[in-house]
């Protein structure tokens, strides 16, 4: 069911009233589950994720994967609740999409955590998706980072992720061919000229169905990309601005997450 996004070029406001470079509301808490070694709850707009961490603990003997046991193994389990999406549908755990998602979180964390400090041990992350409304991978990665900070697992820097899209009306169109002359740039705080293909930050679920988008994950506020997943067709010339906007978004997400961690730390000190 195609969705009408054509109004964007008139008012430069998105479906939910945001401008092109605005994030959705991010609300996060850490240490939500007392039983877990580390836990977090994260909302990015209407996407809601709970993450718990167990370990690093001695791994199961039988599950020894490779020959190298000099590094910590990371296991990621992702549960998508039946009520998370619009349709009420039970997704099996062997689902390949799910497997890919947890593989992504796992291998992104492997390069961010100091895994060599915990030989012969296993770290288990469990992610529960309570509601999905776009940026699922980004929310999972951000929630995992917060839970790992809570668990006190050493890491090089925050691993933060954010999605970015492009308003290019038809995926196949080369840049600016779909531009409506004279309308681009009205009222926008960005000089777009005749090019109506704007990059967008942090897409919601409806926008994700409609527009090409990618998810970028960076380490801290550097420009180094750890994760980059794009699943929709789009012209190569769109990639640069989408990446730039995504990396910029990651920096802002990092600030927000950092704020959450600091606020939590402050509260802990006050309570003592």
């Amino acid at each position, binding site marked *: 069911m195609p969705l009408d996004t054509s109004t964007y070029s008139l008012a430069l406001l998105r479906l939910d009233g945001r401008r092109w470079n605005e994030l959705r509301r991010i609300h996060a808490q850490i240490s939500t589950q007392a039983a877990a070694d580390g836990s977090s709850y994260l909302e990015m707009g209407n996407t809601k994720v709970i993450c718990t961490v167990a370990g690093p603990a001695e791994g199961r003997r039988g599950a020894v994967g*490779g020959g190298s046991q000099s590094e910590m193994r990371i296991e990621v389990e992702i549960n998508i609740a039946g009520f998370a999406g619009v349709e009420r549908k039970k997704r099996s755990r062997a689902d390949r999409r799910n497997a890919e998602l947890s593989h992504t979180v796992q291998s992104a964390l492997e390069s961010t955590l100091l895994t060599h400090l915990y030989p012969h041990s296993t770290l288990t992350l469990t992610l529960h998706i309570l509601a999905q409304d776009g940026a699922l991978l980004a929310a999972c990665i951000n929630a995992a980072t917060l839970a790992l900070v809570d668990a006190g697992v050493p890491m090089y820097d925050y691993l933060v992720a954010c999605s970015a899209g492009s308003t290019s009306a038809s995926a196949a169109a080369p840049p600016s061919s779909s531009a409506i002359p004279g309308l681009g740039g009205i009222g926008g705080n960005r000089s777009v000229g005749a090019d109506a293909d704007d990059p967008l930050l942090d897409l919601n679920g409806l926008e994700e169905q409609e527009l090409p988008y990618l998810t970028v994950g960076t380490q801290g506020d550097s420009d180094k990309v750890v994760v980059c997943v794009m699943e929709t067709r789009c012209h190569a010339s769109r990639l640069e601005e989408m990446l730039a906007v995504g990396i910029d978004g990651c920096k802002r997400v990092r600030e927000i997450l950092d704020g959450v961690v600091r606020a939590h730390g402050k509260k802990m000190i006050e309570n003592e």
Partner: protein
Amino acid sequence: MPREAELSLNEREFLLQALRENVRLDGRPFDTFRNVELKFGEEYGVADVQLGKTRIVVRVSCDVTAPYPDRKFDGIFNITTEFSPMASPAFEVGRPNESEVILSRILEKAIRRSSALDTESLCIIAGQKCFAVRADIHVLDHDGGLVDAACIALIAALQHFRRPDVTVEGENVTVYSLREREPVPLAMLHHPLCVTFSYFHSGEVVLVDATLAEEQVRESEVIVTMNRHGEICQIAKYGGSPIDAVSLLTCTSSALGKVQALWKYIQEKLDEDAKKRDAGGLMAELSAENAR
């Protein structure tokens, strides 16, 4: 428990040292593919791709079934992957390992989600009958570059495949066998191909089409799927060491060149095969009669 023959420390160090000295073990330049060899089978829709020592066979087949109730106007297109234990000690029957999940997901995104195959053209009667096209991917030998090789094989096989012709009169559907009527090629909208980039030495060395040994040593990989028109169908960097964003952009531009060259090769092979099948111009004569 069988598992991948892991590289010894000596091999790892040697490989990395060689890369530092700008040498690949097989003497290739950093940005070239291994020798690609594409063969077609006797039947339509069988493609056999050899990429160095990696070998993949794809078979496309189809039959007539009812469409999914929520997609009445679309045919069905499925891709299945099978990793045979003869390809590598790490593969086991009935237990998909991580690389199998990744391969099938990448192909799913690269070919199905980017709608390379027009599934609407597979519909015969809306909501009642449609073609179900199925592509079986068999990995026969594994020496790295599975995603790239599988994608070449799959695209070639889909392009080579011919489905039986059908006519619809009201509710009656007649499916003509290959003997009765010249079969019809599938409607391909574009031809996405994958190029895998491997990063070594914290991003200083970038290799195209890594061998199995190089894959075991690499720090991170980026799989880019593009078509020859310069559209990106999919990018996957699942983790690994951080790389510069600029490097991702150079990947896409270099992938475009590779994809165009690969597609040209596939097309040449398809033409060659078509010529072989059309011995004596018999088919041209037949189809001319049909047109009248």
